[in-house]
């Protein structure tokens, strides 16, 4: 579903990604962990070309990004993204946040878009908030709306960029709950997160990034139980 080959990203002289290879199969949940500044978020943003890689290739569902014939807007419809700071549209109601892209990008009729949005909002437990504005919601509620908004494009892959890092502790659970349900439905997910519990319980694979490289890549059992690299052990001993 997602194939990344030898991905590099420089910001000026700073090499943030230094040759990443990763393959994610359909339905897999991959959690990426690592110290801050290791390039996790940049990597995720390269997957939908919010950042343009310096070199290397990203292939999503058979479509190679950055090729002359590739319409990036078309690819992005199939790649949902959830941001650390939610990035909900503050001038639109919750319902309109969810229906905007299906209406404008897919040309979906108002009624069908509303119906789909209400379905997705019920799924994240927020159907009753449909007429409210984002400023009236708690952080956890905002992030659940953001997930519904991304799902409204019927994506094949979902990217989560530290989705719970900006949340108060008591709200983390509700967001992780929604993500877990999504994983169980078979969604392909790539999650940058510090939630070790989520990684252990939901992930098919856990990946450690450091210094712009992938150091360790394994099942949660291997990753947490018997990491191959000293660096992984050192990182885990600090966060667990």
């Amino acid at each position, binding site marked *: 579903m997602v194939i990344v080959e030898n991905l590099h990203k420089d910001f000026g002289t700073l090499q943030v990604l230094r040759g990443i290879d990763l393959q994610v199969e359909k339905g897999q949940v991959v959690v990426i962990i690592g110290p801050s500044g290791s390039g996790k978020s940049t990597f995720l943003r390269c997957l939908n070309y919010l950042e343009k890689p310096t070199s290397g290739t990203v292939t999503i569902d058979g479509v190679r990004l950055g090729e002359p014939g590739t319409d990036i*807007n078309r690819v992005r419809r199939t790649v*949902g993204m959830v*941001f650390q700071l939610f990035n909900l*549209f*503050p*001038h639109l109601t919750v319902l309109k946040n969810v229906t905007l892209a299906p209406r404008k990008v897919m040309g979906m009729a108002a009624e069908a878009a509303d119906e789909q949005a209400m379905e997705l909002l019920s799924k994240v437990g927020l159907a009753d908030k449909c007429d409210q504005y984002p400023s009236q919601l708690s952080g956890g509620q905002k992030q659940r709306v953001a997930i519904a908004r*991304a799902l409204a494009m019927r994506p094949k892959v979902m990217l989560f960029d530290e989705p719970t890092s900006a949340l108060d502790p008591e709200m983390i659970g509700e967001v992780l709950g929604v993500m877990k349900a999504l994983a169980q439905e078979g969604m392909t997910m790539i999650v940058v997160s510090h939630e070790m519990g989520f990684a252990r319980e939901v992930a098919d694979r856990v990946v450690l990034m450091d210094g712009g490289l992938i150091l360790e890549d394994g099942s949660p059992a291997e990753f947490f139980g018997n990491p191959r690299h000293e660096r992984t052990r050192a990182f885990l001993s600090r966060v667990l």
Partner: protein
Amino acid sequence: MTYSVEIVAKYFPFLAKGIEVTLVFTVIAFIVGLGLGLLVALGRVGRSPALRYPCIWYTNFIRGTPLLAQVYLIHFGLPQVLHYRPNGVVDALVALSLNAGAYIAEIWRGSIESIDRGQMEAARSLGMTYAQAMREVVLPQAFRRAIPPLGNEFIALLKESALVSVIGLEDLMMRANMMAGRSFRPFEAYFTVALIYLALTLGFARVVNHLEGRMKSGHS
């Protein structure tokens, strides 16, 4: 020091006709400036250098030169090389509109750039084009933020419009000049016209404050 109320009363209807001209000119130049300014601002925040540099130089030129020089250039200077017949009304409107456009462009640009980058990214991540994301997500938010500075720009334009009297337009300022000449009472003429401008700007300032207040109580 005397201020003859009779003189003022006699000439007030004459001056009042100038209020209309001043307001019409200000409103037209402001509306043209809003559209022009938006296009220039979009050119400046966009990625195309072929659009960006002309937009930068347009705003630099207008903001870096006196409006009086611009009015003279359009009314007296350019007709010599572009061979058009100078027309006081048209030239005054063009000069004021071009001037307003540059200042309003900076207001639009500031408010567009004040919108968090994450808004554009979220919209693009959903598959929207740059234009769709601008139109549906960034601009609606930027418009709200632009309202207070746009109100101030309208008031500034109202005052600046007095300069077009130099090319013979019968606006408020020109009529004050005429009143001073006919009545031999320049103090009454210019003090009264100043009071009229003051009443207009204070009135519009109240409207702007009201809009600002309503905006703060709204969402986002």
